[in-house]
């Protein structure tokens, strides 16, 4: 399978990121895109921080995604995930990564935007497009939740074909149907 689009999800293992990871996975799966997972390790002269904990954490995040989002067998959705683990300050390295690689959409989760609030403007400016997720308390993991989070997110420079790409995903129809049912029967909410 070839992946024509590339999504980028920056994260830090020091802040909660599983929910954002799961959403980014869902988006990549629906867009049939590859998902780059970007993080950094501290750069300390004379000591190389081991990267095992990052790989462990990413595998754990995948378990979270399976448990909460992926409700059907096969679990192995065709999403190509590519970890990029570099050394240095996350903001600087991320900007360098964005400039070097052709990224279609960057997905920023709430923990990341809190931590790097000052850098967000620059990251969004350098990215092809950006989706900044808002905090979500209730986790349902169904299709409605995916689109609900998209609705709440801040969207920047999304390509014209973004929604038409998503519209090829069958669950959109189910979401819209539920949405309109709620609108036509507001007393049931």
């Amino acid at each position, binding site marked *: 399978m070839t992946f024509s689009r590339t999504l980028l999800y920056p994260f830090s293992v020091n802040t909660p990121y599983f929910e954002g990871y799961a959403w980014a996975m869902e988006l990549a799966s629906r867009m049939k895109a590859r998902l780059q997972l970007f993080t950094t390790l501290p750069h300390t002269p004379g000591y190389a921080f081991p990267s095992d904990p990052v790989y462990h954490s990413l*595998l754990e995040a995948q378990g979270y995604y399976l448990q909460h989002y992926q409700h059907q067998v096969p679990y192995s959705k065709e999403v190509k995930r590519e970890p990029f683990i570099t050394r240095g300050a996350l903001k600087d390295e991320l900007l360098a990564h964005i400039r070097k690689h052709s990224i279609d959409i960057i997905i920023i989760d709430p923990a990341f935007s809190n931590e790097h609030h000052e850098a967000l403007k620059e990251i969004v400016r350098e990215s092809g497009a950006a989706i900044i997720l808002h905090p979500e308390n209730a986790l349902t993991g169904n299709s409605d939740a995916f689109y609900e989070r998209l609705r709440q997110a801040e969207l920047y420079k999304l390509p014209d074909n973004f929604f038409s790409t998503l519209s090829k995903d069958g669950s959109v129809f189910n979401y819209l149907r539920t949405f309109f049912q709620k609108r036509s029967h507001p007393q049931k909410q």
Partner: protein
Amino acid sequence: MSITSLSTASDEELVNAIRKDDRHALGELYNRYYKKVFHKSYSFTKNQEEAFDLAQEALMKAFDNLHSFKGESSFSTWLYTITHRHCLAALKKNGRHQFQALEENVTSEDDTYDLSPVAEESSDRSEQELIMYSLINALPEKERNLLNLKYLQGESIEALQTQLNVSASAIKMRLKRTREKLNMLYALAMTYGLDQVLEQIELFTAG
């Protein structure tokens, strides 16, 4: 299954719960093994990024095929067998196949080898495993029995000590030598062909 009982449930109980669509059981079982699968993959690749790819693929493969787990071996053995095969296949595909020492088959949890010729995925049995089984069968009876008792039947060193009436260190030494011999035969078979090695073993034992 309640959240509190998840941590005390056996792997097999969790598998049954997953079959009934228990998502918490899936999370629990996955979390028990993802690190071990990563480290097993790393033992093949010696490269963390490749190990990560292989580990997630092997985990997905296993969870996608939970329906084929019949409980004929422990879940961990089944999972490690899938990981082992997946890693071998990937290395072979990349032209990086190296001889895997028999020690690679040791599971970190129960220290047993999966020698069962009737593993869960019999149709998917790799060429390498067939070679290994043939070589085990070609070993002298004493050595073959020792391997079978320890790794197929899971006898403890203490039990073997009583059964064979020798010291624990002697048992360990015999096991070590037999494994090394098997590894060497395996390497020869992969290089020169199984038939040729079996022929040589036959000639040697007949002489």
